[in-house]
């Protein structure tokens, strides 16, 4: 069901869109792991698996505050590969395995963003003289070059993510992995990540009290799940 050439082509296209969305265009939440993985899961016929692994990675992404020139992981294309790995597996195994792949790829994606930013800086430097002439065509060319480079970067990162997911699927088939432990440990790490991020944003004021109230209400509601 998964891993057909058509599936992979659609996932590659989606991963590229997701990769572009994070910084370049249009920054419309498509790069959030919950969104990226849910759509990827739907594309390979298992939206629930995509949603589950996306929810796990979203906990990690909630810790990220992409302000100014800060460096951060890229969870979007990583989540696409994670969804492919988790699809059509028992969720207790698939979420842990997909989440692990997602974290590794998020680190690589973040590194690729830094490389792109440095490459963009070199591009602007080499065109510094042309930019002082006031020709709009120079600005247009730089803009489109930047977008093309980011699209290429997203293709490469998504391809790597999908290749690792396919390799991981073969491994999951031959290994008797007690995946519950990995899933539970990653949920714990994800909760720690999201809580740390929320705590940092909340500071010591009113927002911290609201955060605590939310945890209490959520825990009470969780008793009825």
């Amino acid at each position, binding site marked *: 069901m998964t891993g057909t050439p058509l599936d992979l082509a659609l996932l590659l296209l989606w991963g590229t869109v997701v990769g572009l969305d994070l910084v370049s265009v249009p920054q419309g939440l498509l790069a959030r792991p919950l969104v990226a993985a849910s759509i990827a899961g739907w594309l390979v016929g298992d939206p629930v698996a995509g949603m589950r692994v996306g929810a796990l990675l979203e906990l990690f*992404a909630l810790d990220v505050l992409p302000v100014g020139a800060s460096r951060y992981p890229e969870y979007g294309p990583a989540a696409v590969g994670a969804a492919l790995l988790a699809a059509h597996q028992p969720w207790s195994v698939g979420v842990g395995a997909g989440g692990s792949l997602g974290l590794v790829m998020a680190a690589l994606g973040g590194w690729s963003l830094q490389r792109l930013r440095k490459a963009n800086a070199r591009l602007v430097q080499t065109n510094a003289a042309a930019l002082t002439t*006031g020709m709009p065509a120079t600005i247009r060319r730089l803009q489109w070059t930047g977008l093309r480079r980011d699209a290429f970067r997203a293709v490469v990162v998504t391809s790597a993510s999908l290749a690792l997911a396919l390799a991981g699927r073969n491994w999951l088939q031959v290994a008797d992995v007690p995946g519950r432990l990995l899933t539970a440990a990653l949920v*714990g790490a994800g909760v720690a990540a999201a809580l740390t991020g929320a705590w940092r944003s909340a500071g010591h004021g009113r927002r911290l009290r609201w955060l605590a109230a*939310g945890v209490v209400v959520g825990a009470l509601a969780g008793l009825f799940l």
Partner: protein
Amino acid sequence: MKGRTRALARLLAVQGVWSYERMLGIGMGYAAEPLLHDLQSIDPGRHAEATIRSAEFFNSHPYLAGLAVGAASRAEYDGVPGEQIRRFRTALCGPLGALGDQVFWAGLVPGIMAFALVAIALGVGGSGLLVAVVGYNAIRLAVTVWGLRTGLATGLQVGTAISASWLPRAASRIGAPAGFLVGAALALIAAWFLVPLGSAGFGVAGITAVLGVALARWGGTKFTSLRFGLMTVGLTLLWMRFAPWP
């Protein structure tokens, strides 16, 4: 002044060539180009100078960049001296960055994603996520339209317009509901994952979470959440490989 629709579309890609050197600068110049086009027939020299200025260093929250693009373009048509426009652009960087980060990156984005997580945990599923994404993008687009319009309408007075707008109020009010939603989502999504895994799952997740929070709070800046996650994966895989497993 023509080209507003094209400028608006280009503002969606204002970070298309983000770099450490000019940050949003080139994207700002790209977005301003349709707005400055008419200046070419009025005063070609001024148009060239305005084009150069439009692509110089600029940094702000990307959703609010339209305020600066619109205001600076209006100032170019109003014949404001170039150096004054440069200083004006520089002065806008800080407030537009701080307000945007507070409202969107630290408020609306975590709040909306937490809403989607709550919806999923409560069994609403994909429709909750769809509402979140569509709702967010409607707000994002509306803010971009508002920013460009306000900038074009007020020019150098855009600072006053921002102060009197919804933006500072939103920045001070969005934190509490976002914090509440994130807190609720955390607890609910943890239960959603862990209830089917039983008490062993709760135990493993609880120990990992406590360790993770402790390291993040008191372990220094090296312990990012991603590194802790990768460390968790590594240690768990090692445990699974070498420990006796029932």
